[in-house]
Structure formats: C-alpha cells, structure tokens
C-alpha cells in the first residue's frame, strides 16, 4: 500500500488548521491566550506508541468517528493542565461529575473544531459519538482498538497546544482507523514518479532500522564516555517544513549537525541540552576543565557526533542498500529552533513537508539526554523505502 505524499501533506495541513480552531475554542472557553506549537503526523507501528506515552498521566476525551473518516480521536491533557483548565472553566470547582462534564464538553468542542476541517475538505459528513471522559496513564489514554495488532501501522496526528498565560498545555491525538485511512489516501502500487508516494507497509521496518541506528549511537556514547545510555523514543514524523524549528523549542542545545550525501541525502543533528553536553564531554576529557562548553568540550562533542552519525546512518545504508556519506561535523550551540532553521531553509527549497526521524537517547537516571534528528530528502527517502524488502511476518527487523 502506497500513500501519496501530497495527500498526506494536505491532511497534515488540515490537522494543523484543525488544531488552530481547537486552540481558539479553548481560548474562548478558558479565557486564556492559547496557541498551537506544532502539528505533526507520526507514522509508526502501534507497539511503538508505548514508549511515547510511558510514565505520563492524562485526562482526556475520547470520541469515535464514523462516516467520511472512521476511527477514534483522543484529546488528552496532562493531569496538571487539566487541573488548570478546570480552574479556568469552573472557578471554585464543583462536584466530580460536574467537573468531568466541563472537561468533557471542552474536549468535545475542541475536537469538533479539529474534525470539521477534515469533513469540509472531504465534502462528507463525519459522525461523532458522544464524548467519553477518560483518565489514564500511558497508552491507556488511547483507544483500545489501536493495539489490536501491535505490528499494525498507525497514523497519529498530534498537535501540541500551549498557553502564554500559564501551564495550560495539551495534546490532540487523532488516530484514524488505519485501514480506512490508507484506503482513502492510498494506492495499491507506486503513483507518479519514484518518491511521490510512501510505501506505508515498510514503515515499521524503517522504524526498527532507525531504532537500531539510535541504539548504535547510544552504544557509542556509552563507549566513549563510560555513561550508560539507552534509546528512549524513536519515531518517524511528517511535518510542514516551516514547523520543524518549533519542534525543537527554545531550549539551548549543544552538539553537531551534518549534511548527508547519498540516497537519501539530507541533514542529521545530534543535540544535547547544555547540562548533558557538559557531562558527556566531561566524560571524554581526561583532564579537569573550566565549567561550560569550551574548545576542549567542542572538540569532544564533534568527535562524538562524528562517530554517532556513522553508527546511525550505517544501518540505514545497509538496509536501504545504498551508500550515505556525511560531511565533517559542524559544532552548534544555540536555541534548538535556531540550530534547525538553516537546515530547514535549505530543505524547504525543494519540499513543503519533511520527514523527521527523531530518536531520544537517555541515561537511566535521566541526567543525560541526546536527541538525534534526521531530515532526509522526502522524495529520496520515499524512493529508498520502496526498495526495502517487504516486512517479514514478525513485523520487520528484530525488536
């Protein structure tokens, strides 16, 4: 099954507009200044969702969809954000049932704003079930049906919404029914020129491959610094190019960026938060140095990035049957969004949306965190995926 990239881009844009409407609705209801940080489409095997949601407590609203699109929508607030919302909607509170009713109705209104744009774009009606209040941990917040087959692919439209006024943040997760959605966007064979469509049945294999690349990069950190690390999350997202910098936020990061040449070409960024960068670099430098990130630390981070990049992309090249080279490391130390902007500017000359392959490597105590962002050329990646052997019955590469 192939999904047309242009259609996926249109649906990504619709999700983005829907999230804007949802944020506007929340702003009116709660009297808060609310805006959408970013909207992206994550493509992954259902089983991989567990890592993304692990350890988080949610309050949310679940709504089933039938008609033009089938599936479930979940609007989820982190628990503390839900408490802020309740205080905004019902100052002084109320009994439990009434509070649940308020949160449910707020979720219902926001979700409708999200869905309306899809319905109008498709020229169909989308029936919504009455909203159901849910409070759950981790992936329990998501509809049960998503995990009927852990190897089954999932399209997850995710919008992060924030408030300028206070810690009112929430996410909209929309998970259209996989089969119906791919039927709507999909084709049995390639369409147009090579790279115009993504072979979605190969994405789980690609995700496994990315996880292995990230694991290899994590091993490199452990070997070079003596710090035990592991891959926390690895996922493939589809984002409007202009939104990529916002994905990284305003936190200051330090690390290295690389340009990739080959099939696919693109960019790779290996970024640490400042404290992690200092700790990791410190582990590589045998002598005592001044606090902060000086020349010695920069050199260490360049070398680490160089080795991690090779570990990361070698797996890609092997599975895709291609050769991928990378430029020497360029040290970066700036806000995450500022680091990504120049890369995106170049990528944006040839494409409107970008695939981001995003892996997080952490130490068990969480003191060191490294984010690896790969931004391959969209068409070249799609064409390369097409060349992967179909996934084995076990869902692809070993987990």
């Amino acid at each position, binding site marked *: 099954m192939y999904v047309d990239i242009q259609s996926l881009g249109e649906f990504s844009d619709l999700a983005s507009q829907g999230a804007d409407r949802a944020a506007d609705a929340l702003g*009116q209801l709660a009297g808060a200044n609310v805006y959408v940080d970013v909207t992206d489409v994550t493509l992954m095997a259902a089983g991989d969702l567990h890592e993304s949601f692990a350890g988080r407590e949610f309050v949310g609203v679940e709504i089933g969809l039938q008609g033009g699109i089938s599936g479930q929508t979940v609007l989820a607030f982190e628990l503390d954000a839900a408490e802020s919302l309740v205080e905004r909607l019902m100052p002084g509170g109320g009994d439990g049932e009434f509070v649940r009713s308020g949160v449910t*109705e707020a979720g219902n209104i926001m*979700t409708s704003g999200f*869905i309306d744009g899809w319905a109008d774009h498709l*020229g*169909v009606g*989308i029936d919504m079930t009455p909203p159901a209040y849910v409070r759950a941990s981790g992936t329990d917040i998501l509809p049960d049906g998503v995990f009927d087959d852990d190897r089954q692919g999932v399209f997850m439209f995710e919008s992060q919404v924030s408030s300028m006024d206070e810690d009112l943040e929430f996410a909209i997760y929309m998970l259209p029914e996989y089969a119906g959605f791919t039927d709507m966007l999909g084709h049995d064979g390639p369409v147009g020129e090579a790279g115009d469509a993504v072979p979605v049945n190969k994405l789980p294999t690609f995700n496994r491959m990315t996880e292995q690349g990230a694991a290899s990069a994590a091993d490199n950190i452990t070997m070079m610094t003596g710090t035990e690390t592991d891959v926390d999350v690895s996922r493939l997202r589809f984002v409007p190019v202009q939104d990529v910098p916002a994905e990284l936020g305003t936190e200051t990061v330090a690390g290295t960026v690389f340009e990739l040449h080959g099939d696919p070409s693109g960019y790779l960024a290996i970024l640490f938060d400042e404290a992690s960068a200092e700790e990791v670099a410190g582990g590589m430098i045998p002598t005592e140095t001044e606090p902060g990130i000086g020349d010695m630390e920069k050199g260490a981070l360049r070398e680490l990035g160089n080795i991690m990049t090779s570990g990361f992309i070698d797996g890609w090249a092997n599975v895709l049957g291609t050769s991928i080279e990378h430029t020497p490391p360029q040290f970066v130390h700036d806000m995450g969004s500022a680091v990504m902007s120049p890369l995106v500017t170049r990528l944006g000359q040839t494409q409107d949306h970008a695939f981001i392959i995003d892996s997080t490597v952490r130490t068990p105590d969480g003191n060191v965190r490294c984010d690896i962002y790969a931004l391959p050329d969209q068409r070249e990646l799609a064409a390369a995926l097409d060349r992967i052997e179909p996934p084995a019955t076990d869902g692809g590469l070993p987990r």
Partner: protein
Amino acid sequence: MPTSVLIADDSEFMRNLLREILEGEFEIVGEAENGVEAVDLYGEHAPDIVMMDIVMPIRNGIEATTEITEEHPDASVIMCTSVGQEEKMKAAIKAGAEGYITKPFQKPNVLEAINDVVPA
C-alpha cells in the same frame, strides 16, 4: 409572557451554561440529556424554542429535530453544537432547524440566534 425554551444537551456543563445565559429573560421549561428526552419534553411543554445539541446519546439532535418538526411543523429549533461541518449544517436545516450556533459561544450569540427565530 416570556419566551419558553427547552434545552437539549448531553453535557451537564453546557446545560448549566445555557441556563445561566437564558434565565431571567426566558422561561426554561425543561432540560433533555438526549434526543428521545428532547422529543418527549417538547410534546409535554411545546416550548417556543428548542436549543438542540447534535451529538447526543440514544438519539442525536438532527434526528430529534426531524421528529419534532414533522409532528409540530411550527416548532422552532436552534442547533447549538460544537459541530461546524457544512454537511451537518445542511442536514440540520433539512431536518427543520431555523438557527445554528457553534460552541463555544458568548451570550450575545445565543440571544441573537433566538431573536432571529422569535423576534422580541
């Protein structure tokens, strides 16, 4: 005599909000939590206006509106819903709704919609 209103919404929060907006200027004759109750309460009270949600359990607001307007051609129903889909708006009008406001709304939106249907 004040204009009488029936509120049909499955959300207690939203019924409460509408009641707060309307109380004083209108007579709230009943509150329904689903489409079946809305039809029953309409038959019981014959209100001047029904504020009708669309997405409700048991029977949705469009079905309830169809039933009410078929039995009572003079009934005035205003859809009061979070759904803003063009297809649903057309379906609501076809069912006999005379007004359509989308949530979230402010008090002036509600009063204006009612005034359009039942001029003061």
